[in-house]
């Protein structure tokens, strides 16, 4: 599968793409240079002709671009950029898009449980708002053009711990790279996305019964491997 990857030099790209490069023909692009010096094509998502050109011949597009805080760029990159991706996909007949963004449930639902598909509440911050708008654009294109879209929403992303961590509860709604890679493969392979668009609050820590992974399990077959919460066990017995 030929996959156009937008945002290869960002926060997530360098940790994600190495896990996909063996099984997918990845085209890595970004506006910035790759932090590890890997060759990356220059692509500015705010320029439609650049997006359209890079998407030629692709089977899928993965959009991991973002601007979190600039008053103008956040709209141009997050909202308009998402629209450019969808427009190019529609124009070229590309049927699969993997989208990304911040979770929009934590502030309102932190004291609720079994939270899965709830109305998102991103608040008025640039990052949250512009990404919310991008989701609505994706939904419109899924409906109109039958593009199958999976969107992953994050709170935190990091390496898996290598040793037990004591004295702390595990982080809320936090995904480790290996699980993100797993999820992206599942998204790319998924034949049909129920309703054309599905978003998942992805994480690797089971236990609070707060942010549910039930739908991700059912639709993608996603399962944290292993349950990262196991690294945060309190020592019992002889150990103190």
């Amino acid at each position: 599968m030929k996959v156009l990857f937008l945002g290869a030099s960002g926060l997530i790209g360098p940790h994600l793409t190495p896990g996909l490069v063996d099984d997918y023909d990845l085209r890595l692009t970004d506006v910035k240079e790759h932090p590890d010096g890997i060759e990356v094509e220059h692509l500015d998502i705010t320029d439609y002709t650049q997006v359209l050109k890079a998407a030629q011949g692709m089977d899928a597009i993965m959009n991991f671009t973002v601007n979190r805080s600039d008053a103008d760029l956040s709209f141009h990159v997050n909202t308009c950029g998402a629209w450019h991706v969808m427009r190019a996909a529609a124009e070229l007949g590309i049927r699969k898009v993997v989208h990304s963004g911040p979770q929009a449930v934590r502030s309102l639902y932190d004291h609720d449980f079994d939270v899965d598909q709830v109305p998102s509440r991103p608040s008025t911050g640039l990052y949250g708002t512009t990404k919310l708008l991008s989701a609505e654009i994706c939904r419109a294109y899924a409906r109109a053009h039958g593009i199958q879209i999976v969107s992953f929403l994050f709170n935190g992303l990091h390496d898996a711990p290598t040793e037990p961590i004591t004295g702390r509860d595990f982080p809320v709604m936090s995904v480790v790279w290996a699980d993100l890679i797993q999820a992206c493969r599942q998204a790319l392979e998924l034949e049909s996305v129920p309703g054309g668009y599905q978003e998942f609050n992805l994480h690797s820590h089971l236990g609070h019964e707060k942010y549910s992974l039930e739908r991700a399990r059912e639709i993608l077959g996603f399962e944290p491997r292993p349950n990262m919460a196991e690294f945060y066990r309190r020592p019992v017995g002889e150990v103190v």
Partner: protein
Amino acid sequence: MRILLTGAASPLGRAITDELGEGHQLRLFDSEPIEADERHEVVTASLTDATAVWSAVRDIDAVLHTGEPPAQLPSDELARDQQLLDEATRGTHILCKAAVEAGVKRIVYGSSLDLFAPYPEDVYISEMWKPLPTPAMASMSRYLGELTCREFARDFHVSVTALRLGMLVREDEVAEQAPDLMWLDPRDAARAFAGALQRDTSESPVWSRRWALYHICSLPPNPKYLVSAAAGIGFEPQHNFAANWKSV
């Protein structure tokens, strides 16, 4: 501040009175009479008495609702459970409703860490964990009271802070006993109430979330109940039962 303190006759109530009595005007509310310093007002009534509660919330800045059950309860188990349920739910609702209608802006409620007892020993419990109340009415009703308070924060311009308190024991009264991870000295509990009162003192319109929740416990060498979030209201336990843990 003028503060209404419910469950004032309980050990928790008395610890809060000691902690806040100097700097604030207290109105002490309980179903049994209280021996108190003359600078404090005393109200002897039940939370389920709407008329008494209405009077008790007049000219009050903050309500500290300890959530402590009345000392006198029926001996029949069913009747006792019914009363506990009534006090915790209807009583809490009467109190919160009267308070918001009287213009009270801050409510602090004493809930319980007991809600997390069913979790295994190797789990660190933070405020993110799902409470697992059991049918034991003392603990279940405490949780139902917490849920009742929370709904007022949803609908009214009032800050509501729930403090999930550990098991209240005084450090100097358990000298020889095997320690419990859930122990909390009432003096530290009282300090948590004092800290919660200050949660929303900024004048900015975006000062705070209306609803907040903190776990309050002592800090043993290998804690199970994490209290780092409560540092946000200035909570730092002073009585950690070190002598008891040393001899374990």
